[in-house]
């Protein structure tokens, strides 16, 4: 299994509060991704990173920001959480420069409930 951990694994928060989710990898992979999973939608890409300090938006980026100050860590921040951001969040990594050819490996997921 790829060495990917996510923290916290579960979180309950209130509307309007900031929330930061952390993804940590021990594989030294260049690419890291954040997805959200909702019923009927499969997984949708929020943001991804192609190197330290290099990030780009995905399909559903509104309301989210990311940061990557080290190769091994990719942070997802909800500046002001809303109930529509209640979801399961997955981090993923992939290895090479030709990133679309590479398999993505997923972390265990974080279940976030916004009340």
């Amino acid at each position, binding site marked *: 299994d790829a060495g990917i951990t996510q923290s916290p694994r579960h979180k309950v928060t209130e509307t309007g509060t900031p929330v930061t989710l952390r993804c940590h990898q021990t594989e030294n992979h260049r690419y890291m991704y954040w997805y959200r999973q909702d019923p009927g939608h499969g997984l*949708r890409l929020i943001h991804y990173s192609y190197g330290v300090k290099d990030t780009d938006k995905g399909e559903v980026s509104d309301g989210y920001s990311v940061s990557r100050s080290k190769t091994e860590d990719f942070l997802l921040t909800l500046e002001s959480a809303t109930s529509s951001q209640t979801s399961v969040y997955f981090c993923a990594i992939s290895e090479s420069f030709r990133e679309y050819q590479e398999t993505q490996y997923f972390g265990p997921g974080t279940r976030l409930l916004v009340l």
Partner: protein
Amino acid sequence: AQTVTQSQPEMSVQEAETVTLSCTYDTSESDYYLFWYKQPPSRQMILVIRQEAYKQQNATENRFSVNFQKAAKSFSLKISDSQLGDAAMYFCAYRSIGDMRFGAGTRLTVKP
């Protein structure tokens, strides 16, 4: 935008039998990759099999194989000799440069 469609929200199979999960996709790209992921109740996303679009030969991994029809933009997953441990959500995924899309998933039940 590319789309991935899994038309079977739920499927059921008897243990030891064979089941096929359907997936279609829409793209104007010629170079892309297709994947099937399995998500058991633990919620961990596990890669089952991948297919490069430029390869005509269908990918196979033990009991799992695909039927890749590029012209029809179809990518079905066949599970042979189904086992109780195969019960899970299965997601079809499409990937090209700068794009990654998942289908909505098919829930597979395996009956003993």
